[in-house]
């Protein structure tokens, strides 16, 4: 029974923990989409977006650093905010914001799956369900708010809307536990 561990067949399989591939690709695609969208509105902001996009891609595929990826999505979103500053095109801004949040979620999920499982693991199904759920929620939410946005609310001024949104946030925070 003296077995030879040098033998390929008896050696342990390799285990690596890179970010999950499918989620990573979708995350980068979403960041790219956000960057292109704001580029159409305000080319200046696309430069910022591009910077963030490099961070997302580099964080996921080159340096495997979650912090870099997070910073990348943050910068892409900063691009969206800057774009809003230059050109107030609600549809594009809404879409770009949605894409950058999706990129944020999938980027972090890619790291989480990579850490808890491994590159050698079959993860497509689990990842796909997560991607689908996130995109679904985002699209429904964006659709709803855009619908409400389109209704001519005479009295719904910017300050009123601010207070409304913020009150919603505070109430949400309170139900956290």
């Amino acid at each position, binding site marked *: 029974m003296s077995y030879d561990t*040098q033998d390929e067949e008896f050696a342990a399989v390799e*285990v690596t923990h890179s970010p999950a591939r499918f989620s990573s690709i979708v995350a980068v695609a979403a960041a790219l989409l956000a960057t292109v969208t704001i580029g159409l509105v305000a080319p200046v902001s696309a430069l910022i977006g591009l910077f963030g996009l490099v961070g997302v891609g580099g964080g996921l595929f080159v340096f495997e650093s979650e912090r870099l990826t997070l910073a990348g999505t943050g910068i892409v979103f900063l691009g*969206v905010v800057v774009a809003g*500053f230059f050109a107030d095109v609600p549809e594009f801004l809404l879409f770009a914001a949605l894409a950058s949040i999706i990129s944020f979620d999938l980027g972090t999920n890619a790291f989480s799956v990579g850490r808890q499982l491994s590159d050698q693991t079959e993860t497509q199904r689990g990842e796909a369900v997560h991607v689908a759920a996130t995109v679904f929620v985002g699209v429904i*939410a964006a659709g709803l*708010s*855009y619908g409400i946005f389109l209704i001519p609310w005479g009295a719904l001024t910017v300050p009123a809307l601010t207070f409304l949104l913020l009150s919603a946030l505070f*109430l949400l925070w309170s139900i956290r536990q």
Partner: protein
Amino acid sequence: MDLETLLNRVLIGIGALLFVVAVAMIAVPGIGSAVPFGTPAVFVVGIVATVTGLGIVRRRLRGEVEETVTPDPERPAGNPKPGEDVDRMLYEMSVLRQGVSENREVLEDRLENLAIAVVRNREDCSVEEARRILEAGEWTSNEQAAGFFQGERTAAEEAGLSGSLLSGTDDVANFENQFRATVEELIRVGDVDVSQSVDVEEETERSFLDQLLGRSGDEGDESDAVDTNWNVSRSSLPTFDTSEPFEDVTLQHTNRWLGVTAFALVAVGVGTLTFTPGLMLAGTVGVAYTIYSRVSAVPRTEGLVVEREYDIDDPEPGDQVDVTLTVRNESGSMLPDLRLIDAVPDEFVVTDGCPRLHTALQSGAQAQIDYTVRVERGEYEWPLLVVARDFSGGVERTSLVTPDAGMRVIPPLRVTNDVPVRAQTTQYAGDVNTKQGGSGLEFYSVREYRPGDPMNRINWKQVASTGDLATIDFRQEKAATVTILFDTRQSAYISGGTDEPHAVDHSVHAASDIFGALYDQGNLVGIAAFDTVPCWYAPGAGSEHLENARMLFAQHPALSPRPPERQDHESQYIDPMTHVRRRLPSTSQVFLFSPLADDYAAEVARRLDSEGHLVTVISPDVTVDETVGQRLTRIERTARVRYLRERGIRVLDWNPDERLSLEIEKAQARWA
């Protein structure tokens, strides 16, 4: 009322206030401009929102995500390499600058003892003479090495030494260089077999750093691959031993959505400040995801049904077993995010496939995991680690599900080849040739007839020619009593490489072959080990004895593939000299299996031998020769082997890459 509830109430209060203001603004369109400081107030709210958002971004970047850390059960368990202690001491001294004087003393002592052994062996002289040669520096022409032992015993030197220790760093570097030079010189003088072309200087630091970082010493592009694994120490789970079929470990908020609120706050804040409705609209998506992350449902993993099947029912150590794991969701609801890891025991290694899966299971659906493990002796039952999350991933529930599928791996005690026992005389008939004449097969002598000699042994030819009666004696063959004794102390759990079995595994594998062979030759064979747990199985014979021995190899904690420091049982030191010696039959031979990692093992062999037991040491050589510490341990081991051989003890210096049966044949030629 604790802080949490207070905070909640404050949040609700602020939210309600903001809501009332918003409703008032919508209901009475003029109110915004009517209220004094209306516009500034809105501005302040915008600024606060933006700043809070940025604060959340900062918190997120600091990384406060909480999730279960999972083990890497595929990889082999990490056992120390021989000589790691020396490398660690050198590393502590030269890099960390810790324990300089203590470590230095230990290393000096160790090297001196070794040098004395080497010089004694070469010069064939007494210890005092060897010490004199060392101190005079006559043992080598290398000045640096010769200087290591010279005059260090003088009081002035001691004082100078401690003075220079305080003064600086160069001293440590000097010591290290001298230490390395001395080790190299001892290799040369002692004629120890090592590969010569190792750049010792660089090698040590790199490989030790790699070890500290848990990296493999291979090529750079594989540096992020996981090297070794102990399930418990690499994961956040306290234990994988469960008696329950289902056990919850943790239920926690992952905080993975922490930061998503920032998208909402910054967009709404900046939108307010710049009066950009588009940005506020964009902020609503952030609000929506905040809601999504708060809506959570605990995944009902208790409804998972797990079954595990093996393709071999009674595997033997070293076998590759195909494992098929089926997971079925019978909880009645969907499990959207399942991360499954089969917590393969530390003793096993996955050689093909992957014992993990990431999937989502509808109610009633099932998934399958296939992989192949190399198994090791023992009795095992292991759980499936289930990390389940809800849709958003906000809640994570970690549980252990143990299917009713134990595995028992028992060595076969196969007869592979003959094992030479040493000549001796006992009362049982058997295979061992003795120096006694009697009944047997091989011709021994012819002697005068004594009344009562059996007729079939009378030398009729002589009777016919001379008329005198004479009797032929044959060489008597007797059975030997053999005790297989294992050195299974913590220090024996060393291995030459990550994926290599440790010395105890090598020993037990070899011993289970040898046990079968000895038994087959008709000897009485017993088993003992010196370890923290007493292990004694008296020499005996019979098929029941053989079966019990198999079970013992498989199940006894002292022979376990898991080192004592990682076992649960209460440990206490047991001295083999009292524990084994008291029970050892006076006529028993001893086969001692030990990597000879320290002097104690050699001392055990010597003492048993001096008490009249015939000792054969079978020592798997797991030493390597990359770093200075590893090279040092190799010389030390070689010195021990020579020490034992000098005293007439048979030592089989066994390189585990070679088949033991071949080595035994070679050794037999030498011993004969």
